[in-house]
Structures are given as structure tokens and as C-alpha cells.
């Protein structure tokens, strides 16, 4: 059941040539977590701010649970927002921060206290209730902000890069915590991030944004394995990119060879091939693949659990990523081998 629906949201800031957000439409089922993923300046934060009511769209509608909230100011929307900077109230204790939204709703003191305790318990900060934000660590501040947003039992939980202010070590743990918490309380959530790992790991749905538009909306697997546009293929995950020309349906002339691909534009079109490193395998003696290329190792990079082999092939330079111990992973620089990959793993986009 659709809980959040965006219809053609557009926002143009004065003095800029292109709209910050340009006709964003999407639907999100109740209880799902949507990641707005994109580079900085792609309009993801502006989209989130329009959902929260902090930014007014030029055109388009925000519909929550079949109610058009586009014209409502933020204080009448009932949305829990966690800001990038957390935006805690510095002159109030953690408990008072969490209580603020309940107080604004006129909830009586006794119930308020119970719900504050409940929210702080939820994020594991019961013992820190009396502390001011300045006496809390970054991770603790982040959890207070989360508790504050959840305490009002929001229709939507909106998170703007909530992990970016944390150091890398904490990030993964907090990421999993937020996801677990979100699923426990069943909050329909929109999460803004520029970090694809965060988006892929946490989200039920990922909207990849670029220049104010949604390039692709899909599950993390869809976005990663079947990028709909060249931008998505470039932004999400890594890939070897080879220029080519379509010879016949399913065949692309690339470098000195013909590469088989699952779907191609009309013959004659100039295209770019994207092949993910983990789809490329060394072929053992007597084995074959849709595409099999002679290769010579140019560079070998060992990063612990993965070995990257950068190889020269007749089609161009390809990088294969292999787990340590798999056949071919020990290939030395200069050695020759055969690389194979399936036609369906070759994505073709107009150049």
C-alpha cells in the first residue's frame, strides 16, 4: 500500500540555470525505507526538504497516506526529521530535546515522560537523559536526534545524511542500528545519502538521482545489477567502460573483437559497454563463456579479501575482481590468461 507519493516535484532556486529538483515522482509503500542516492547537488536533500515542508515546491504534490500535504507548513506535517548536523537544541537536556515534540502536541506531562523514556530506551540512551548535547559523543547525539524524531510517532521518518558526521568506524554499526530500529517501529522512511554502500545496505528501494531527476527507482539489486541509465551504471558500483559500435542485435564491435551483450540499441549506434569487475572470471582450460578474451595481466592489486587484476584484452582494458584462493587469483603481472563474462552481464548504453 502506497504511503508516500511524490508527483512531479519541481523546485528551482533563483539565480540558477537548472532546477534543483526537476519533476521527481515516486511511490513508497508503508513501512519501507527509500534511499535517495546521488552526488552532491543532485537535488536529493531539496527533495527531502520538500517532503518535510521546509522547502516549497514550485510545482508538484507531496501525498502522504492519500492526503495532499503540499500546502501544509512543516509544523503541521508530523514528520520526524534527523538533520545532517542533528540540530539538537543545545540549551536542553537529551530528555528535553526528545520531549519537545510531545510538548508541542500538548501531550500531558505523565504520558510525555513515559514516551521520552521509551524513546531514549529505544536508542539505548536512558542513562544519558539528563545530559546536554555538548556532553554527548557524536554517535550519542545522533541517537538523541533519532529518538526525538521517533518520539512524535511520525507519519514519515526523514534522514538527511545521518551518518556523514560520524567517523568511519562507527558508521557501519550505526547504519545497521538505524535499519533495525526502522524495521522494529515500522516507520516509512526516506534516507538521503551520497554513499552507495549505505544505500544498498539499508534500503528497500533506492532512487538514484542526478541533476534533479530520478534516474532509476528500484531495489538495491535492480539498481546495482540492472542499471537503467549510463549515469546509474557509473555512479553505483564500479565497472570497466569500453567504447564500441553496435554491429548486429546483441553484438557490439569493441576494440578488435565482437562482444556479445543481452540488449543493444539499433545496429550502427555508438555505445559504451559497462562490465562489473566481479562478473569477469578467469577461464580454466577447456571452459568457455559467452565472451572469452585473451588477456595479459598489467597490474595486480591485493586488498585483503579481494585481488584486482587489471588486464589488457583485445576489447580494451578490463579489471577482474577475484576472491583470494579462486583459480587465477595468483596470476602474476605479465602472465597470460583467458577472461570470460556472460552476455547478460554486459550493459550497453548509448555513448
Amino acid at each position, binding site marked *: 500500500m502506497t504511503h508516500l507519493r511524490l508527483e512531479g516535484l519541481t523546485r528551482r532556486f533563483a539565480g540558477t540555470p537548472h532546477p534543483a529538483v526537476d519533476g521527481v515522482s515516486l511511490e513508497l509503500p508503508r513501512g519501507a525505507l527509500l534511499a535517495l542516492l546521488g552526488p552532491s547537488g543532485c537535488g536529493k536533500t531539496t527533495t527531502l526538504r520538500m517532503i*518535510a*515542508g*521546509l522547502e516549497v515546491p514550485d510545482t508538484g504534490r507531496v501525498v502522504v497516506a492519500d492526503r495532499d500535504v503540499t500546502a501544509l*507548513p*512543516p*509544523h*503541521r*506535517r*508530523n*514528520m*520526524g*526529521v534527523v*538533520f*545532517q*548536523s542533528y*540540530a*539538537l*537544541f*543545545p*540549551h536542553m537536556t537529551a530528555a528535553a530535546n526528545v520531549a*519537545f*515534540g510531545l510538548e*508541542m*502536541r500538548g501531550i500531558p506531562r505523565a504520558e510525555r515522560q513515559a514516551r521520552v523514556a521509551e524513546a531514549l530506551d529505544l536508542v539505548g540512551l536512558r542513562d544519558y537523559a539528563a545530559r546536554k548535547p555538548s556532553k554527548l559523543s557524536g554517535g550519542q547525539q545522533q541517537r538523541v536526534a533519532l529518538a*526525538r*524524531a521517533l518520539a*512524535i510517532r511520525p507519519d514519515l521518518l526523514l534522514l538527511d545524511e545521518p551518518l556523514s558526521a560520524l567517523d568511519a568506524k562507527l558508521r557501519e554499526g550505526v547504519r545497521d542500528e538505524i535499519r533495525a530500529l526502522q524495521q522494529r517501529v515500522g516507520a516509512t522512511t526516506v534516507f538521503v545519502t551520497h554513499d552507495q554502500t549505505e544505500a544498498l545496505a539499508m534500503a528497500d528501494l533506492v532512487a538514484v538521482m542526478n541533476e534533479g531527476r530520478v534516474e532509476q527507482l528500484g531495489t538495491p539489486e535492480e539498481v546495482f545489477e540492472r542499471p537503467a541509465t549510463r549515469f546509474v551504471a557509473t555512479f553505483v558500483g564500479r565497472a570497466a567502460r569500453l567504447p564500441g559500435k553496435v554491429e548486429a542485435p546483441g553484438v557490439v564491435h569493441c576494440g578488435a573483437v565482437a562482444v556479445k551483450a543481452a540488449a543493444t540499441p539499433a545496429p550502427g549506434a555508438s555505445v559504451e559497454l559497462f562490465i562489473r569487475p566481479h562478473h569477469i572470471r578467469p577461464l580454466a582450460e577447456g571452459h568457455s563463456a559467452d565472451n572469452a578474451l585473451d588477456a595479459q595481466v598489467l597490474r595486480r592489486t591485493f586488498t585483503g579479501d579481494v585481488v584486482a587484476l587489471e588486464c589488457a584484452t583485445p576489447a580494451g582494458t578490463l579489471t577482474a575482481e577475484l576472491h583470494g584462493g579462486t583459480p587465477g587469483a595468483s596470476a602474476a603481472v605479465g602472465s597470460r590468461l583467458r577472461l570470460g563474462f556472460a552476455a547478460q552481464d554486459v550493459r550497453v548504453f548509448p555513448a
Partner: protein
Amino acid sequence: MRPGWALRLLAFCGYALLLAPVIVVALISFSAGDFLTFPPPGFSTRWYEALFANGQLMAALQRSAILASVVAVIALLAGLPAAYAIARLRFPGRDAIAMLIAAPLLLPTLVLGLALLLALQPLKLAATWPGLVLAHSMVALPFAVRIMTTAFGAVPREVEEAAWTLGATPMRAALRITLPIAAPGAAAAGALCFLVSFDETVISLFLVGPRLSTLPVEMFRYVETRTDPLVAALAMALIGVALAVVLLVERLVGFNRALGRS
């Protein structure tokens, strides 16, 4: 980095230059002689005793303190909303209004005093409490607005937005969140407005009357006719009041925080 001896010497000379007149006045205030001479012929506290026994000056001190307190309150009450609007809201004429509020700072006080006299006289407000309060508030307001605009501007916008998303109307968010965070700035602004009014002389000269006079005006008149060290003792009393106000702000909020540099 620890300052080197050359820098310390320079700083010492600078402070000595700034404070030398104060030190001279402080020494003369303890003079045992009958005239404003330096060095004093001997030391005593007779002029402080004379000061506290001088009913006219003590009454003027009381009037000035009351006037300055009222002016500080009015300048804050009028300045806070204005500063909030300038710092936070977007509306046509915002820059013009900000300029207009700052305008009294640009006019020579002599011109301002004359203009106020001409404006207040027909309204029967010259040489009255309301007239003085109005005039001083007008001079103090730019300071209040300037300091508070900075203080409000230093409160992150996201903090206020967070309050909105939690259900606070813009008014409640401003009163419950933005204003308390900017409170040190308000304390500094109030103190400064108090001192601006307390020290204000030129405009007061135009607006005081025989039954309503402020301390700086009384002091000015006293020096015109007398040459005894009483006025030095009075000057020390004025410095004492200013110092007390600054220390109070320092005690309450810390002066650096109050001025927005921490």
C-alpha cells in the same frame, strides 16, 4: 604561540597609553587639595565624601540609572523582533529597514539632538521622561539590533527547522529555541544599551530641563563652573558603574560568548 618580549612591550605601551588618563583621574580623585591639579598635593577620600553628600549629583545618578535601565529594556523589546526579522525572514524592504534602524549611528549626535528637540518640543515631550526615554532608545536601538542580528544569525537554521518539524509554530520555535540560544547576545545587547544611555551627553544636553537632568549633563555643568576634584571622584563612579555592568554580563554569560566570538 607565546607572545615574544617585543610584542609584550608593545601591548604594555598600548595599554599604558589608553589607561594613562584614567590613572591620572583616579589619582586626582583621591586628592586632598581643592583644585584639579596633578600631581595632587596629598591624598584623602574627602571628595568621595563630598560626592556622596551632594544631593543634586546623587539624584542625577539615580535618574540616569533608572533612565538607562528603562532604555535597555525598551531597546531590547523593540530590537529583538527587528533583529529576528532581519536575520531570519525574507521580505521586501528588509535591507532598507536594516539601514534605517542603523541610521542614527551615522548622524552627528549634535544634529540628532537638535532634530529631536525640534521634533519633541511641539509634542510637549522636551524635558520630560518620555522624551528622554524615546531619544535614548532611538540611539541605543541600533546597537541592540546589530548585536542581536549577529546573535540570531549564529543560531543554525537547522535547529529552528528541527523545532518546526517537531510541531512548533514559527513563533513558538523563535521563543522556545532561537531566543534562549541567543540569550547571551541579548544580555550583551542590554548591557551595551544601558551604557549607551548612561553615558549619553550631547543629545541629553538638548532635551534635559531644570527639573530633569542626567548625570553626564550635571557633570558637564559642574565642570563649567567649578574646578575642584569632586568631578574626578564622579568620573571614577561612572567607570565603576560601567565596570559593574560589564562584570555582570561576564558573570552571567561570559563576555566573549555574549559578543558571539568564542
